[in-house]
């Protein structure tokens, strides 16, 4: 039996609008052990919202409701905003999709990493500097000293994303939520960033929630996959068995991909079945 780091039961995310309440996430339950859990789905399926809701990053008027979101048996929803700040970054951290929007454009990269480290650890500046260099080396950045002095716009997309990962891992969190960490990157760089993340997760025994729309990537990289559609989990499966998935939505997504080894004249177009969004959410708990 694997120990559970995180346990989410019946999570809802709602946004009141003029046309009534919009449910972005509708009653999702899952648990996370020391594993790599993938969440896949199209845009608008609620996968990013699930990740954000765990860290309580959804701002008003958005509403997060759940029976519980337990981190080591403690309900995150019962914490005050101040207590949450001690959770974010230190215990659960998140890598966002686009490094261009998640780094401060007017501060050097070094200052930002040092700030992230010193916020969680009471150390001297020089110690934090050494730690930052060590972290940049850990994510395979050559010439770390120059990068420390550089500004975000001087970095390529792949470098920026690796810097984000370094920054998120520096407080040594137990859980890392990665929201489309590689979709802004090239295939060749993608592989590199994933390998780095994989190594760090294994080495430190972290839990990883990997949010992506790329089915092949998730099948390759994760241990277990949740497939989301219209705010609900429609299927849960082992990642290496994703290609044998049964749900017609998952099958439709898989078949709509062009493949090098099986060329076709026309790609299959997903035919949406209203029953998919009506069916109750499948539990992703172990």
């Amino acid at each position, binding site marked *: 039996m694997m120990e559970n780091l995180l346990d989410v039961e019946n999570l809802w995310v709602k946004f009141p609008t003029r046309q009534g309440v919009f449910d972005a996430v509708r009653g999702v339950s899952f648990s996370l052990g020391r594993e790599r859990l993938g969440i896949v789905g*199209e*845009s608008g399926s609620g996968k990013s919202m699930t990740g954000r809701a765990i860290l309580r990053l959804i701002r008003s008027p958005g509403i997060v409701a759940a029976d519980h979101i337990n981190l080591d048996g403690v309900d995150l929803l019962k914490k005050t905003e101040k207590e949450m700040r001690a959770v974010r970054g230190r215990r659960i951290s998140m890598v966002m999709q686009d490094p261009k929007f998640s780094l401060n454009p007017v501060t050097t990269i070094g200052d930002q990493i040092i700030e992230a480290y010193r916020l969680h650890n009471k150390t001297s500046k020089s110690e934090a500097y050494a730690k930052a260099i060590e972290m940049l080396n850990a994510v395979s950045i050559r010439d770390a000293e120059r990068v420390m002095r550089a500004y975000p716009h001087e970095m*390529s*997309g792949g470098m920026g994303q690796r810097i984000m990962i370094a920054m998120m891992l520096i407080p040594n969190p137990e859980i890392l939520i990665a929201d489309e960490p590689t979709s802004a990157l*090239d*295939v*060749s*760089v*993608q*592989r590199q960033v994933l390998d780095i993340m994989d190594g760090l997760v294994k080495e430190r025994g972290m839990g990883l929630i990997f949010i992506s*729309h*790329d*089915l092949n990537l998730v099948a390759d990289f994760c241990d277990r996959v949740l497939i989301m559609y219209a705010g609900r989990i429609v299927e849960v499966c082992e990642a290496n068995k994703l290609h044998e998935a049964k749900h017609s939505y998952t099958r*439709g*997504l898989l078949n*709509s*991909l*062009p*493949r*090098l*080894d099986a*060329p*076709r*004249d*026309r*790609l*299959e*177009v*997903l035919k949406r079945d209203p029953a998919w969004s009506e069916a109750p959410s499948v539990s992703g708990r172990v």
Partner: protein
Amino acid sequence: MNMLEIENLDVWFGTARNRVEAVKAAIFDVAQGESFGLVGESGSGKSTILRAITGLAPNWSGRITVQQTALTKKRPKAFFKTVQMVFQDPYASLHPRHSVDQVLGETLHLHGFKQIDARVVKLLDDVGLGQKFRFRYPHQLSGGQRQRVAIARALAPEPALLLLDEPTSALDVSVQAEILNLLADLRQEHKLTYLMVSHDLSVVGHMCDRLAVMKDGEIVEIMDVAALQRMEATHPYAQHLLQASI
């Protein structure tokens, strides 16, 4: 007959110390009715080639020939009737305060078409959108619908060569399949020639007849799709790219 011929194309940005050679001595040609792919990582200069052809990257040297006419610095009006481009991000390439009708109507007007009203209707039908989308604004459309509008706009002057700059990389896989099918249909219907840029080898493998692999501004290999499907790349970088995308 070749639709497009590129000979010794160099494209650069900046001057003196800051000069960056984005494309170095590119040579390839695209036959009439062919679909040609350009692949490579970001910064390899694949989009820059498209931009040099359309005139969006003004600093270039070498020879670009479209339908047997060599291009000069100033493009004639007929050029824009022959060559059109579809951009990567449908969220950024449509004017946020122009309705679909205005976008298509303006393009048709600039190219001197008559019966604009009937043509707008025809264009929307061609890309599978239909009448009810005619007076909508971009924010009322999904990503896939926006990309269809962008394709309709490119088709408006009845071009022969369509330049596609990562037309589906901002879209979901399910929507990507719809757009790729649409592009394949349109190519057959209008006898179009495609020059398509993508970082996704399987998309290029599906859409194109031949492709060029680029690295650091240079074309390292040109091969046909059958060779790609058999994984027969000769250049080490092309092999590496193939391996990464499986």
